[in-house]
């Protein structure tokens, strides 16, 4: 277990150094969520879709989670890239637990998302979203963000190990992201969905992540601290449920990913 944690950190550590060598990519990623908040959000706010609540408050955590999803879901392409180069072969020939390789990479996907969180918070503050600046809440949001990134990047890695080529991976990535995003409570409450979509939404991990973020996050009125703040949103899982769902699915994905990782080179 000790080895596992240490090696995971070695992988993450060097992924962070890569980001520091070339931070442009991470910064460019912030453009998309900025557009969602500044354009889509401004227009939709006028529809008063979410009764009794400021739409931007409702939407900001959704956009944060959405950008985590978009960054992470294409993470598998990096694995295919490294395989094409030959790096993966060399990693796999070292005495490193496969799950540590997978989790190390996934964790770094989470770290790539931290600048997004900072930028979205700044934008949201400028848009007068009611943010709770309590450090406990901030750390809570961060935790959900990293868990979400681990979950989706590992999911992405699993797909990469199965499809093995960049072209097929891009196709599948596109097919997956939109349904995950639209069948979640990111930009509209689940209550507004037709029944069949609600079912899909409840099995969608993104829903739980956004729900969790909304709980601890600023962006929604957290007057009573709990779920009610998302007015009209009946998801109402407890924070504990959100966390448990995310952590168990991440663990399962990391184990599956660890098992499949070696197949990417065959």
């Amino acid at each position: 277990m000790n080895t596992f944690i240490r090696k995971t950190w070695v992988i993450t550590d060097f992924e962070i150094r890569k980001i520091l060598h070339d931070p442009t990519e991470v910064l460019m990623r912030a453009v998309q969520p900025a557009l969602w908040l500044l354009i889509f959000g401004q227009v939709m706010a006028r529809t008063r879709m979410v009764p009794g609540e400021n739409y931007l408050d409702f939407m900001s955590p959704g956009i944060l989670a959405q950008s985590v999803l978009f960054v992470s879901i294409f993470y598998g392409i990096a694995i295919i890239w490294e395989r094409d180069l030959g790096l993966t072969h060399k990693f796999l020939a070292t005495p490193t637990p496969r799950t540590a390789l997978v989790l190390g990479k996934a964790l770094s996907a989470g770290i790539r998302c931290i600048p997004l969180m900072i930028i979205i918070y700044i934008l949201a503050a400028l848009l007068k979203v009611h943010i709770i600046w309590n450090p406990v809440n901030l750390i809570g949001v961060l935790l959900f963000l990293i868990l979400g990134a681990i979950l989706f990047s590992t999911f992405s890695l699993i797909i990469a190990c199965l499809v093995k080529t960049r072209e097929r991976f891009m196709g599948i990535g596109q097919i997956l992201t939109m349904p995950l995003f639209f069948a979640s409570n990111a930009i509209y409450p689940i209550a507004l969905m037709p029944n069949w979509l609600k079912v899909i939404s409840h099995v969608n991990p993104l829903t739980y992540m956004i729900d969790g973020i909304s709980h601890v996050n600023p962006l929604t009125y957290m007057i009573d601290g709990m779920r009610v703040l998302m007015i009209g949103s009946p998801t109402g899982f407890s924070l504990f449920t959100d966390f448990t769902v995310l952590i168990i699915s991440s663990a399962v994905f990391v184990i599956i990913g660890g098992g499949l990782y070696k197949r990417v080179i065959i």
Partner: protein
Amino acid sequence: MKIIETKKLTRKFGSFTAVDSLDMAVESGEAFALLGPNGAGKTTIIKMLTTLLPATSGEAYIGDFNINTQPNKVRKIIGYVPQMISVDGTLTGLENLLLFAKLYDIPPGECKPRALNALEFMGLSDSGKKQVHQYSGGMIRRLEIAQSMMHRPKVLFLDEPTVGLDPIARKTVWDHITKLRKEFNTTILMTTHLMDEADNLCNRLAFMSRGKLITEGTPQELKNSINKPDATLEDAFIHYTAETLSEGKTFSEVSRERKTSKRLG
């Protein structure tokens, strides 16, 4: 003492047999080359011995460890330089070495001195702080070899170590491999298409064709074994493998090889 030994080692891909019931042994301290036309199974053997590819049947031992049942123990005593590029272009040379030092469980205090030593050994001291995408092909290869030697492995696997390099870079890589053998007494198992590479670096060679080992011996023995005065190693290679030569390459293999050559060149 035998350090690599295979017993009826076989790998099939569907109905195609890439490595066919191979029996082979390499003594400790040797430099051994596998030569053969494309598709002869050289890379597949290396992938099995480095635990990247499970064997379909048969066994192999590295040191005292079985590749099928003790892969993690095998990984600790081997180093592997794949044919393709295996260092990260975004990281610096030094960082690439530190990364693998840590993955190979070298005590934290010793990682940095060892990485700096390795850079010096490979003549890369001045470039240690540069990102690897600024390196030339020959520098990348030397860094890759240094990276695989961080934990002082007993066996080093080199898959076409100088593919795509210009003659000067090739010579430098050869010099460093020779130096490394002298200094650490590492056993080397390599594949190559270059007869003079095998002749220069290795004390024993094996010719392979269609997944089988056809003959083996010292370069001199192989040259003497064919009935031709002043035979070169190339003559011997053609003699032993010509009748089995085939087109052999798939599109993906060709494209991969060209890509590798382009990146290194």
